[in-house]
Every structure is written in C-alpha cells, then in structure tokens.
C-alpha cells in the first residue's frame, strides 16, 4: 500500500527542508511528521521518506531503529509512558506501573484489545523533581498518586 502525506503535511515538509543545508538533516523532523500522519513508521512509510529525502531506505531504517519515539507498529490511541529511572523509582514508579497494569489488564509493552491504551516503561523523562511521572502522548502528568492516575485515565475518551 502506497502512503502519502496530506497536503498540509506536504507543506510542512517543504518548510522543514528550508531549515537545513542538507536533505538528510530533515530526517528526524520528517519522521515526527510521518508519525503524526500515519501513527507508525512502517516499512512503507520508511520507503516513502527515503524517496522524499533522496536516501536509500536502509538509511532511514537505520535511524528509525536507533530511537525510541518512532514505533514501527501501530500503537494505542493513548500511549502511556511511565518513567522508571531512579528518582521516579524511589518515589514509587513500580506501584504506578502495577496499578496501571491492573487497571487496564495489560502488561508493559501491550495494547488494550480496544486499541485505546498502550503501556510502556521508559527511561528518565527529565521531570525528577515531580516524581513519579508519566507521559501520555504529548503531555506530562506529574506527582502521580493512584487517585490521580484513575482520574486521568478515566477522563480520556
């Protein structure tokens, strides 16, 4: 199946190219744009990006596999990333993860059957002073408690 950016994304891509002296440097911003457009960086998306950037597709695949923010398979509508590095662990990150696992009845790395939530444990989110912390899609949720987690997850449609 061939993939293609929407007209708005095409314009955004053209603007991205203006920011750099080489096409290759537009790789990460283009991957972010593609994730927003297609929800994942599948082999078809990699091929499309390689054409846009005049690179061999292996160059794109090489980059995609290095970073954590470019999923190669579809994820849930809400991706929950619970920080589990030291400061968050000290403040109860394991209990946060256990609670979400139980609430959503999924394990870490899994997606709920209705494709609504994906749960991930991630390394330091850079918000150690307000630990424990999780990120859902673009937003940070800090100083979590069990009650707060319930409220946040229940509010997502």
């Amino acid at each position, binding site marked *: 199946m061939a993939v293609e950016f929407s007209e708005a994304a095409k314009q955004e891509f053209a603007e991205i190219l203006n920011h750099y002296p080489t096409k*290759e440097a537009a790789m*990460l911003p283009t991957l972010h744009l593609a994730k927003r457009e297609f929800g994942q960086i599948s082999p078809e998306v990699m091929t499309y990006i390689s054409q846009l950037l005049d690179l061999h597709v292996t160059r794109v695949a090489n980059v995609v596999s290095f*970073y954590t923010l470019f999923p190669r398979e579809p994820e849930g509508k809400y991706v929950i990333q619970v920080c589990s590095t030291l400061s968050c662990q*000290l403040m109860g990150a394991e209990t946060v993860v256990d609670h979400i696992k139980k609430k959503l009845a999924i394990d870490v790395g899994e997606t709920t059957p209705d494709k609504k939530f994906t749960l991930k444990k991630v390394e330091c989110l850079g918000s150690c002073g307000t*630990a424990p912390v999780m990120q859902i899609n*673009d937003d940070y949720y800090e100083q979590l408690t069990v009650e707060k987690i319930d409220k946040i997850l229940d509010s997502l449609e």
Partner: protein
Amino acid sequence: MSELYFLKNRGNPESKTIDFYLAHGGYEALKKTLKSFEPNDVIEEVKKSGLRGRGGAGFPTGLKWSFVPQDNPNPKYLVCNADESEPGTFKDRYIIEHEPHMLIEGMIISSYAIRSHLAYIYIRGEFVQGARILEEALAEAREKGFLGKNILGSGYDLDIYVHRGGGAYICGEETGLLESLEGKRGWPRLKPPFPAVVGLFKSPTIINNVETLANVPLIMERGGDWYSQLGPNPKNAGIKLYCVSGHVNRPGLFEFEMGMNLKELIYEHAGGIYKGHQLKGVIPGGSSTPVLRPDEIDVSMDYDSLAAIGTMFGSAGTIVMDETTCMVDALYNLERFYAHESCGQCTPCREGTMWMVKLLRRLEHGEGTVEDVDLLADIAGNIMGRTICPLGDAAAMPAKSFVQKFRDEFIEHAKQHKCPVKKDKSIKVTDANA
C-alpha cells in the same frame, strides 16, 4: 546575588510571553551588545565572567567560543543542547517552558559572538510542550525584529530553528547530538577534531547547554566582572539552578549562587529527608556522578569542591536516597538505564553495561556471590576511559562508587542470598516546588 534570575517569575503563566519579558527588561542586553560590543568583545566579557558549562562538563564557556576559527570559510553554527536527559536533572525544562526568551536572547548574543548566522535548539523529543513554547517564542522574537535579517538595524542576521530529538540519551553528548541533527543515528564522534573546528555539517560549531546560554543576557547586562564575583571563587563563579529529587519532603528546583552547601540544600531548602527518615546516600550532580555517604555531604556544591572529594558537580541533579533504599537495587536501576542508552559503538560500554546489569540482577535476587561484588567493580574499571564518549565513564562511575561506599550491603546480598533491605515501594506524596 540577592534577587532571583531564573526563578524570579515562578508561578506566573505570563512569564513565557515576549510582552512580559520586554516589560521586565528583556532584550535590553541584546540591544546593548549589538550597539556597543564587537563579537570578540562579547567573548572577552564571557571569559571574564568565569561562566562554565552548565550541562555537566564545566568547560569555560568564553574559552570554548574562542576556539572557533574565524578564518574558516564555512558557516559557523551555534547549537543549544536542550536534550536534558541525565537522571536527576530537570532545570533546562523550566527555562524552556517558563523563560524561553531568556534562552533565545542568550542564543542571539552568543551567535553574534561566534559570528554564526544559523542556530539550532536540539530539544529532546519527549519535551513536546517545550518545543511548542520555543516555536511560539521564536515566532514572537522574529516578529519584533530580534531574529531574521538586519537585527535591530545592526546589519547582523540570524535565524534559530527548533530540532526535536527522537528519544535517545546519547544525543545529549555533543557529538552524538551533531550526528542526530544531521539526520543519522546519534553515534558520538572521535575527538579531536573538536566541534568548534569540525562540527555540524563539517563546519565550526559551538554546542552549549540551555542554562549556560540563558546566563549570557545577565552577564552582558551587568558585566563579566560583576558575574565573576558571585559564588565561592572566580573559578566557580555565578548563579546556578539546583535540582533535588528523591526522598526529600520538598523536592524541586532551587536557585542560588554557585557553592550552595549540599547539606543545607537537602535539609533546609528541600525540607529534609522524607518523613523524618534517615539519609543513606546522595548522588550530587546527576546519575553518573559518584555517590556520597551521609558523612560526606557537608560540602560546597561547585566544580572544584566536589571534584576534591572524588565526585562531580555535573548538572547539579541531586538525588537523595533514604534508609528504605536498597543500594544494589538503586545501582541496578541506573545500570539498566545505561545499558539501554549505550549506543553500541564501543565494545566495553555495549557489553560491560549489560554484564553489570546481569550481575546486579543476580545479586538483588539472591543468586549472587561475594566474588560478583569485586567482578562488578572490575568490569566498571575496564569500561572507564576505554570508550569514544563519556557514556562509558558515566556508567562505570556509579558502579565503582556504590560498591566502594556501600560494600557491606552488596556483600550481605551475596551472603544472605536475598535482599536484606526493607524497601518502600509506595508512592510518596511531596510538596514539590518544580
């Protein structure tokens, strides 16, 4: 300095707008610089200030700028390192989200100093809000004529773009960052050549941390001599954001002159140990800096004082651990982080971090031996100094120091064939001020 600089508007949602910034003296330092300073004079002023890199390495900022070869015909680049990912560190995010114009003004002045006409802010991919706020602030600055062609009629041109990372700790290492910015894996480069000579797109490049650059307007406004008087001595001069996390009653961000006493920071400003517990250990400057025992924390938080007791100031990301912390488990957590974030280029780091994780898992789960404790320290010793970039050292230093300072606890894990510590995994509710 009696008044606050970075945190003066804490709690005010307007602080990120250019109107608020301008109404409180913003961009005056830029106007003064463009009007009365030649680029080289700016470098001299920053040299005089004694400002050292706030990302962790502590290299003198003005000196770094002076390494840019002005006879090189290639364009020069300034790159702001906003990839804040060192566990325990959360200061740059505050500046980005609450004082973006402080950073942008600092970047314009710094770019002018090194004669750069194109600058990038490399921000970690997870900071989506931060990237948005910066984009908006840059648009405001462009609209007011602080960016673009012929800035404030000075004839100086500059543009700044935001570049979002893809999720990788190693891209906070400056040459890994450059590779990533060029659209590749964030694999650190061999040095020399240093980025000031051969950096982004093979051109002279200066990479500075967010907090470092955000200091520059203050230095240009009040003068390098004035700035150098702040702090305990001219080699450790200026103001600093201190991050405190972990088992304290009031974690968060604090601003003081350089040289805040670590004990005072924890017990007075951060409200003491969580619920009156006993202190067990402190990581003073971000997860890679060697751990301190409670009897070692009566020390000035500055580059030289912390180096003198065998640890590092780093990014001033202080992590506090109380009596309920198992030091084997804490180190296991950190080494998992480094094993996950190792880029895989150098064998000692790629393999060594993984072996350390396996040994620590064994010890924590009661399957380790007394010999494993020395083996752990031995592996750490064999990673140190044997890798392209400092991630190897960053993984080895906590392992060496945890084993050295909490040896009895490691040995007890092996002897008792179980974790002897009564760990508290509950969620702790604090009065965080971040």
